[in-house]
């Protein structure tokens, strides 16, 4: 049965990809990319990677799709007919693909427990992490503790990407207080989607509650800082889409977001420095408390918080920068 699910999901993925290659309407391509992400997240669930499925759905079907759509608004929705011949790319792709397939023939069979990939460190993570770190979700303990350096690097990459985006695109400054009454008056006159606004308003607190649940329940179930950060960002994206950029900017000013993005990285790095001051290695949480296991607990909760804050504020801020380009005069329009 699991085999059948797996095969049909892979089949649907291939169909989606073929459609993406053939279509010329970029809007349709981006919508299909959303489907592609949802499907691959479903495959991750079928392959037991629940944490990864969480992240992929959030990032691929959520954030990436929204950012691509925002880009399409400024760049136009049709792909021009290419003057280039498609023969050479096809040849290169076929040769590369054939070489890769040839390479898989030497790979060990899929799913065999004796495969070399499942031994060495993986055994240790599975057998000892519940005792050493004391939390049931092995992915979180590997992510936050055993491979804490790596994760710190990733958080810094995300932060750097925000710097890049902000140096390329400006976020609009919201209108001053003097203009605000007029704007509100305008909005009352032409409320674009009252039903959506009500639904969004009802959902906002629950989304944020859910994000907090994912953030702090990440030790016990699928979830953690990365996923919770994206969910926070999704809440504000929904608000921006239904109420307009100006209201969202009034709610979360860009200066605060920038400070939070840097602050998250600081919390993460600071935990490492504190553990050094207490006599351990960098990011060695054992020394944070008299009992190593509760030290690990404290360390993981703190650094996951840092990750969550950084990811959320980076994504919200990047989204605002994109919206500034995509919907420049939404304040007047309502």
């Amino acid at each position, binding site marked *: 049965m*699991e085999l059948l699910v797996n095969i049909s999901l892979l089949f*649907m993925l291939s169909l989606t990809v073929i459609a993406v290659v053939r*279509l010329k309407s970029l809007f*349709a391509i981006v919508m*299909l990319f*959303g489907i592609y992400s949802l499907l691959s997240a479903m495959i991750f669930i079928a392959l037991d990677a629940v944490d990864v499925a969480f992240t992929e759905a959030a990032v691929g079907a959520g954030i990436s799709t929204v950012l691509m759509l925002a880009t399409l608004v400024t760049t136009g929705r049709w792909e021009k007919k290419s003057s280039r011949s498609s023969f050479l790319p096809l040849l290169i792709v076929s040769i590369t693909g054939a070489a890769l397939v040839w390479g898989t023939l030497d790979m060990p069979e899929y799913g065999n427990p004796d495969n070399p990939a499942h031994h060495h460190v993986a055994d240790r993570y599975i057998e000892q992490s519940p005792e050493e770190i004391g939390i049931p979700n092995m992915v979180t303990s590997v992510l936050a503790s055993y491979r804490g350096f790596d994760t710190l690097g990733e958080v810094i990459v995300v932060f750097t990407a925000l710097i890049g985006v902000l140096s390329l695109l400006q976020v609009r400054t919201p209108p001053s207080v003097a203009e605000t009454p007029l704007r509100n008056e305008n909005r009352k006159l032409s409320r674009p989607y009252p039903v959506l606004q009500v639904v969004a308003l009802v959902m906002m607190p629950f989304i944020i509650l*859910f994000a907090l649940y*994912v953030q702090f329940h990440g030790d016990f179930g*699928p979830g953690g800082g990365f996923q919770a950060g994206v969910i926070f960002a999704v809440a504000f994206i929904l608000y921006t889409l239904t109420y307009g950029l100006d209201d969202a900017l009034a709610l979360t000013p860009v200066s605060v977001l920038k400070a939070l993005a840097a602050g998250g990285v600081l919390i993460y790095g600071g935990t490492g420095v504190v553990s050094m001051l207490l006599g351990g290695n960098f990011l060695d949480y054992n020394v944070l408390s008299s009992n190593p296991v509760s030290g690990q607990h404290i360390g993981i909760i703190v650094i996951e918080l840092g990750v969550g804050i950084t990811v959320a504020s980076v994504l919200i801020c990047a989204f605002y920068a994109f919206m500034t380009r995509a919907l420049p005069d939404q304040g007047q329009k309502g």
Partner: protein
Amino acid sequence: MFATATIALLVIMCLALVRAFRGPKIFDRILAVNMFGTKTVLLIAVYGFLTGRPEFLDLGIFYALINFVGVIAALKFIERLEFYDEREER
């Protein structure tokens, strides 16, 4: 019983996928994506019961959410594009 439900959901997803490919209008595609997302949520729920570990329903909650936000974003940007033309989407 869960196996039957899983197969039925996969068939429904395939049918929605066909509509997403064929268009013809962009709104048809968005509708198909919306339906596809709903069925994915149900598939996650049923698959959890099928494998005997139905505790990952958090994912289902989140998929429902992300699907909604995706559809709203698509509509919002379409509205802005002012590019609705009678051309068939191919």
